């Protein structure tokens, strides 16, 4: 009996503390976290993420911060190890002035820390974790500015129907999880869009010879050949052998094919006019991003593609904190609410950002490119509509 009372008192204390601890006057300070693998094999892209978020923080501070208070950007290094990711999460959660986190960029670490951030109502906005299940577990604090893996299938179907105007489509996919899933989502999308003349076949990655299955494709006479293979060399063989067999369908490859050397150069002309999709935009072609790109390149050097979403994520987070701070004090719950209300946010990614109720980027975003000469020319971006 005594024990039960102790336990319930303890629990009541915990509930009270966790309910009270996270509301504080703005003047005490504003911390934002950045969780990622800043050391180890993924250090380069993660530091690009941190530096890009830092540019956003610097811009806010240069404008006078939030309610006159300077924002402090805190790094939390998980070294790509889920155990350390959990430590980072505990550290951030324990910091009373921490109102939101950019990251973690990796799906497995995001998964390991979901519960910790979630139970503290601390907003996290990832810029790269694309595993669909992350937003299927009912957590309210988890958002992403990058598309889920499975958004690309529907967007590719839209591209095939609306941009390429295809009526007959051949889909070849490699027998690995990512490619099979991509194929499944695309086929479901095509069907939904009313395209029923579809041929689907499988290929083996690294087989070097796709002529028998491409001969079959040729007899089907499709308007578009969607070639879903993982690597650029396999895609190069696909486009080359399709041309050699005289298949005049539009060749449409996956993100793996966005490789100048191993796709365009390796196919020796066969890839001219071919299309590919990719999860990242060509940031240099977006006028709104010019200022960010200039700042990044002046301060940190070459930009690879992981930075822009982080700049966007930090700005979305700071905008929400700014709204929450209007009344003089901030709580994590308020920040969470404002982030979830993000609707049609116009940033530097080339399309308006809206979060759906799960925290996913509404419609996702898939970018399409066409091979022209020795380069990829940006064509369009599909966001689920």
């Amino acid at each position: 009996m005594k024990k039960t009372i102790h336990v319930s008192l303890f629990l009541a204390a915990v509930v009270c503390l966790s309910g009270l601890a996270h509301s504080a006057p703005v003047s005490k300070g504003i911390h934002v976290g950045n969780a990622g693998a800043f050391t180890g094999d993924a250090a380069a892209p993660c530091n690009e993420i941190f530096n890009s978020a830092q540019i956003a923080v610097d811009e806010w501070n240069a404008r006078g911060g939030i309610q006159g208070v300077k924002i402090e950007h805190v790094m939390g290094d998980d070294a790509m190890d889920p155990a350390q990711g959990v430590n980072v999460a505990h550290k951030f959660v324990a910091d009373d002035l921490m109102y939101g986190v950019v990251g973690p960029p990796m799906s497995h670490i995001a998964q390991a820390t979901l519960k910790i951030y979630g139970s503290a109502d601390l907003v996290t906005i990832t810029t790269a974790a694309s595993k669909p299940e992350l937003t299927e577990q009912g957590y309210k604090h988890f958002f992403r500015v990058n598309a889920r893996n499975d958004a690309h299938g529907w967007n590719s179907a839209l591209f095939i129907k609306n941009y390429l105007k295809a009526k007959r489509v051949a889909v070849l996919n490699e027998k690995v999880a990512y490619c099979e899933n991509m194929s499944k989502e695309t086929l479901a999308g095509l069907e939904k869009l009313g395209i029923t003349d579809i041929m689907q076949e499988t290929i083996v990655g690294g087989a070097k010879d796709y002529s028998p299955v491409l001969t079959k494709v040729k007899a089907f006479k499709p308007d578009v050949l969607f070639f879903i293979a993982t690597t650029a060399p396999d895609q190069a063989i696909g486009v080359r052998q399709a041309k050699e067999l005289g298949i005049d369908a539009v060749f449409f490859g996956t993100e793996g094919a966005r490789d100048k050397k191993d796709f365009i150069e390796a196919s020796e002309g066969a890839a001219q006019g071919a299309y590919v999709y990719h999860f990242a935009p060509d940031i240099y072609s977006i006028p709104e991003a010019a200022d960010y790109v200039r700042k990044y390149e002046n301060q940190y050097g070459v930009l690879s593609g992981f930075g822009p979403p982080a700049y966007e994520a930090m700005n979305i987070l700071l905008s929400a904190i700014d709204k929450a701070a209007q009344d003089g004090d901030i709580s994590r719950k308020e920040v969470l609410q404002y982030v979830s209300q993000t609707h049609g946010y116009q940033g530097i990614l080339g399309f308006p950002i809206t979060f759906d109720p799960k925290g996913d980027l509404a419609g996702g975003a898939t970018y399409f490119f066409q091979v022209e000469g020795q380069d990829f020319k940006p064509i369009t971006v599909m966001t689920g509509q």
Partner: protein
Amino acid sequence: MELYWQQLPQQLVNGLTLGGVYALIAIGYTMVYGILGMLNFAHGEVYMIGGFTGWWVLHLLTRNNEILMNAALVIALMLIIAMGVSGLVGIMAERLAYRPLRNAPRMNLLLSALGVSIFLQNLILTYQGAKVRTFHIASLIPESFRVFHIGSTVFSFMRTLVIAVTFLLMALLTILIKKTKVGKAMRATAQDIEAAAFMGVDVDRIVVLVFLIGSALGGAAGTLVGLLFTQVDYYVGFQAGLKGFTAAVLGGIGSIYGAMLGGILLGLTESLAVTFLPAAYKDVVAFVILITVLIVRPWGLVGERIPEKV
């Protein structure tokens, strides 16, 4: 149904090219088995090294996407040097890894061959990396010359070349074995290595020759596939070795004509299977045929039914 018939001629061309290559690889397996009774698992790697050698020759003879000499000469050099290097690798494997074990139990030889295979694969991985090498063949054949049509069937220059070279090499090998004294010695050694030695055949030389010829043909196959499919990497030997071995068993391991027939049949089976069934069943069909043949004729299609030697 019409959909099937119209692809048939094209699938025959596809199958014949692939089958020719399988046959060249299978010959290497079968010749060694015929004489030593061992499966040379390193043969797939010899094929891969042939591919890399061909790539290097082409690479060294190309400047700014233009070849430095006549295209026919470049292709000939690629083939000859690849055959030479692969032949040398085969001989070295025999001398260093197989000859010391010739009188040891078969299992030791088999394991030694497996070791050579792993060694060669990792050697290439270390020195050439895991990246795929692309054969830049555009400068070898002028655009207008690259493909030609007969009816609705497309022949590429490279396919025609591969078919021609494979059949030429197989014809030369047949003549060597049937008409020359060395060929006679090879046949004698295959029949009974000890009796051949008693009759004055230099058995060691014949074994070396067999490894040289078998490996050189494997090397030629590597370069031909490189020219045809335009890529080589350190791992291509595994799949090719498996297919070559299957072809050799299908035809009757130990029989050179069996290897030729088995290779071509396997290539045709694969491309025809894709025509009539989902492509995923390609290998299923190939191996179902292999198993069926082995049940009905365990000695293979052409192989001889040899009573167990006592």
